[in-house]
């Protein structure tokens, strides 16, 4: 098998396309290449890029336009949150609300307290002032860490399933399905420490949503993602909204802010 064909099949498998479907797509590509009398790379371009395009087209589309969540109840409500580390005021009187089925982006300069705000929402950091009201069932995707270096993706799914007393089998099945929606087919051989940065981040996202939380807290979840995975993530965020999950996402990618319902901008840090 030529390098292009081999790369094509491998890239499809990595994007959770079944072997049968991969073979069929390769046959179609071969057929078209034969008809035109050209090598496939000249017709379709790089194998990985073409496979990525096809894999995304095969996944469930994001669907109909999203309904606004005006009538739904709040999943998170922050009132007057302030936080100071030593002399530095990180958060100053932040008030916000995220409703079920609504996505809200948090933007701001470096050091403006975006990650701290998410930690306050999750409950791992205590605010100096203000109140947090939230639904109990929360999925938290931290910017870094949050996975075990020496466990495989499947073992992570089994572990996180126990948080809500779900069986290991259910955890595995749910994790693999969610991974496929991000274009990733987890390997049972590689531990998290052996995964690329982008794939490890996909694991991070899947673990956040594994138990079907009512509120998802995402801290720049796309770090290390390629373009296709980045688009998949936004499609996934749309799906969560449709299901009624409230989504609070910290982001630097200002170009995609039209995809969220509301934007909260945090004040720049004090000098």
């Amino acid at each position, binding site marked *: 098998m030529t390098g292009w064909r081999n790369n094509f099949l491998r890239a499809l498998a990595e994007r959770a396309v079944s072997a049968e479907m991969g073979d069929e797509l390769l046959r179609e590509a071969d057929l078209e290449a034969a008809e035109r009398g050209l090598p496939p790379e000249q017709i379709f371009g790089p194998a990985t890029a073409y496979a990525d395009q096809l894999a995304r087209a095969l996944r469930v589309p994001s669907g109909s336009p999203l*309904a606004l969540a005006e*009538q*739904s*109840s*709040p*999943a*998170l*409500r922050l009132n007057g949150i302030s936080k100071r580390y030593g002399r530095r005021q990180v958060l100053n009187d932040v008030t916000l609300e995220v409703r*079920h*089925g609504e996505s809200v982006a948090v933007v701001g300069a470096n050091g403006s307290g975006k990650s701290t705000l998410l930690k*306050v929402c*999750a*409950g*791992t*950091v*205590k*605010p100096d002032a203000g*109140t*947090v*009201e*939230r*639904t*109990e*069932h*929360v*999925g*938290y995707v*931290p910017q870094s*860490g*949050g*996975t*075990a*270096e*020496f*466990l495989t993706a499947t*073992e992570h799914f*089994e*572990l*996180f*399933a*126990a*948080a*809500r*007393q779900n069986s*290991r089998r259910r955890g595995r099945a749910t994790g693999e399905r969610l991974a496929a929606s991000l274009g990733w087919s987890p390997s049972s051989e590689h*531990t998290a420490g052996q995964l690329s940065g982008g794939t490890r981040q996909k694991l991070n996202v899947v*673990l956040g949503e594994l*138990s079907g939380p*009512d509120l998802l807290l995402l801290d720049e979840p796309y770090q290390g993602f390629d373009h296709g995975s980045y688009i998949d993530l936004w499609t996934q965020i749309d799906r969560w909204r449709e*299901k*009624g999950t409230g989504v609070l996402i910290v982001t630097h990618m200002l170009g995609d802010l039209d995809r969220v319902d509301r934007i909260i901008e945090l004040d720049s840090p004090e000098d």
Partner: protein
Amino acid sequence: MQMIAIARATSRGLVRRRSALLLLTVLPLAFYLARRDVTHSAIVVLALGLGWAAAMLSLFSTVNALELDHRLRVAGFSARSILLGRILAISSMGLALMVGYLVLAVVDQDVTRLGGVALMMLCALLVGVPLGITVGLVLKRELEGALALIILLATQFMTDPERPVAHWLPLWSVRGVADWALDLKDRTFLVDGLAHAGATLALLSLVIAGFSALRLRIHRYRPLTSSWSD
């Protein structure tokens, strides 16, 4: 269920760190071989080495998992399940190691009270595991934790067990039980050793409970009911 899930994940993670496990296995063995020609010393340092290895394993497991533990707490795990699961996994591995070293002591040395030697090792293990977790929770960093354990346990090795200050060190129970098990002294020494192990374990449990409440805390929030209709 949560505790078992943590124990399983911890064991899997530890088993994959083969070189680290090998080195921790060698640690008591190296101590033993250095004193092999003196039965009493050889078995005492073997047990102390086992406690040291268990403490190191617990320290690194605790510090490495702190970020993951926060996330597991948010996901719904209780702090108690996380800690007990980790203790269960490390203690099980320590027990397997202990059995191996017990066989070594019986085969290679002239041991009269086998049960006493087992008790020495059990004391080392039962104190070593929570000691490592305590240092991990208090200091939160690997290097600082490793240095603290070296200070504590090297002092334990160097201090004359007859001196009053030795009684304040965490693994003194091993030496107390050794007096009964190896030097065939009266039961008072055994009782003193076990009492020391029990008191140390109780103290470490209290510190673990306090610091885990601090380190693995989910801060209070007002609950909102989850309701959603299309």
